[in-house]
C-alpha cells in the first residue's frame, strides 16, 4: 500500500509544555484513521505539525516519501496537497462561499478564472452548498460554514484530508449534516485522518482508531476493539465517558 503521509518520532514543545511527544504514524492511500482523546491532549497541535503549519521541534514528516522536515523543503507546494479542515471553521470572512473555495485554485494551482469557478462549484455541490455559493460566511449557519470549509480543502484535490474536530464548534443539531458530508467522502475513497469524537461515525468509517493523551499515542487498533474492550485503562475510562455522553444526546 502507498503511504500518503507519515511521521516519525514527532515532538512539539512550547517552552515547558510538551504538546506532542514522540508520535509516529502512517496513513496509506484510501485509509481513514480517527484520532481522539481528551481536550488539551495535543491533537490539534499534532495535526498542524503533520501539515507543517507549525514546525515540529523534533522528528520527521513525509508526504508521499518526500521529507518535509528538512531545509528547503517546498512547504507551500506540500500544503497545497494536504487538505486541512479547522476545528474553529475559519472561513475567509471577506469572501463568499465560492470565493473561499476559488482562492487556492486561482492563486496556488493557477487555474484560469472559468476553470477555477467550475471546480469550486463542483466542490460546493459535493457538500451540497451550491445554492449558497454567493453568500458570505456571516450569512451561513455553522454547519454550512464547515461544509464550505470542507469544500475549500476538497477542491484542491489533495492527497489527504486532515480534519480537526470538524463538528466540535457546531450545535448538536448541526453536526449531522457535516457528518453526512464526511460519510460521502469516505465512500469516494478519500484518504483521511480525522480528529473526532463522533463515535457512531468512527465505528462506521474508520479503519483504525488512535487514542491520544498527553501528547502521545496511548493505544491504537480496530474500532471494534475500542468499543468492546480497550486495552489501556485510560482508553477504557475515556470510551466509557464518551459512550455515556453519546447515549445522553
Amino acid at each position: 500500500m502507498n503511504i500518503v503521509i507519515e511521521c516519525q518520532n514527532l515532538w512539539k514543545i512550547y517552552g515547558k509544555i510538551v504538546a506532542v511527544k514522540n508520535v509516529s504514524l502512517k496513513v496509506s492511500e484510501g485509509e481513514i484513521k480517527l484520532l481522539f482523546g481528551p481536550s488539551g491532549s495535543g491533537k490539534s497541535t499534532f495535526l498542524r505539525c503533520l501539515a507543517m503549519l507549525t514546525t515540529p521541534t523534533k522528528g520527521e514528516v513525509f508526504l508521499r516519501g518526500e521529507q518535509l522536515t528538512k531545509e528547503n523543503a517546498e512547504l507551500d507546494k506540500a500544503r497545497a496537497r494536504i487538505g486541512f479542515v479547522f476545528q474553529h471553521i475559519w472561513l475567509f470572512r471577506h469572501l463568499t462561499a465560492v470565493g473561499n473555495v476559488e482562492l487556492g485554485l486561482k492563486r496556488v494551482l493557477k487555474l484560469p478564472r472559468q476553470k477555477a469557478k467550475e471546480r469550486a462549484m463542483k466542490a460546493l455541490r459535493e457538500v451540497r452548498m451550491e445554492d449558497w455559493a454567493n453568500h458570505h460566511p456571516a450569512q451561513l449557519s455553522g454547519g454550512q460554514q464547515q461544509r464550505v470549509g470542507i469544500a475549500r480543502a476538497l477542491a484542491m484535490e489533495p492527497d489527504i484530508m486532515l480534519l480537526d474536530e470538524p463538528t466540535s464548534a457546531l450545535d448538536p443539531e448541526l453536526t449531522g449534516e457535516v457528518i453526512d458530508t464526511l460519510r460521502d467522502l469516505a465512500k469516494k475513497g478519500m484518504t483521511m485522518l480525522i480528529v473526532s469524537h463522533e463515535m457512531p461515525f468512527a465505528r462506521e468509517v474508520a479503519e483504525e482508531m488512535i487514542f491520544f493523551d498527553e501528547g502521545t499515542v496511548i493505544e491504537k487498533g480496530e474500532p471494534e476493539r475500542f468499543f468492546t474492550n480497550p486495552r489501556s485503562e485510560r482508553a477504557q475510562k475515556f470510551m466509557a465517558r464518551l459512550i455515556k455522553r453519546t447515549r445522553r444526546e
Partner: protein
Amino acid sequence: MSQKLDVVQILLLILGGVPTTLSISLFSFLMGVAIGIPLSFAKTYGGKFPQILVDGYEKIFRGIPELVLLLMFYFGIGYYIPTPFKNAFFTGIFVLGLRSAANQSQVYRGAIRGIGEDQMIVARSLGLSKLLSIVYVMIPQVFMFSTPGLGSEYALLIKDSAYLFFLPGITEMLEIANGIRKATGVTTTPYLIAAFLYILLTFPIATWLDKWGSRKKKQLGM
C-alpha cells in the same frame, strides 16, 4: 490693491485653493498607504531586523515636527538635490506622505491584530505563500478594520496641508486667506472662511469612512 471684498468674493477666492489642499492631502494619504502597508506587515511578520527598522522609522517620523521636516527637506536636502526637492508641491506631499506612513503603519498593525492569526493560517494551509496570503487575505480585511483610524489620518492630512504655507509657490487655502488679509487689511473673515472650509473638507469624508468600515465589518461578521 486695497479694494473692498465682500464675503462671497473672499469665499470664492479661497475656494480656488481647495484643489491644491485636497490634492496635497490625497496624494500624501495614498503615499502613506503605499508605504504604511508594507511597514505594518514587515513589523508583524518580519524578523527582528525589519522590526527594528520599522520601529526606528516610526519613531523618527512621528517624533519630528512636520514643519521641521518640511523645511529640512525643502531647504536642506533641496539645496543638494534640487530636483525634485526644490519643487514645493512634491516635497510637501513627500514629507506628509512619509509622516502619514508612520501613522498608518500603526493603524494597520492594530487591524492585523484585530483580524487574528486564523486567516493567515488558513491561507497558508491552502499553499499560499506568506506574501500571497497577505495580498489576497489580509490586505482586503485590513482596510475594513482600519477605519476609523484612517478617517482621522485623512483629517490630519487636510489640516497639516496648511504647513505648506511655509513653502514658496503653493497656493493652498491658508496661503490665499493670508494673501487676502495682506492685500485688503480684512483681518478676520479670510481666516474664518478658511477654517470653515477645513472643517467641511475633513469631517464628512472621515465620518463616511468610519461608517463604511462599521457597515462592512457588521455585514461580514467581523
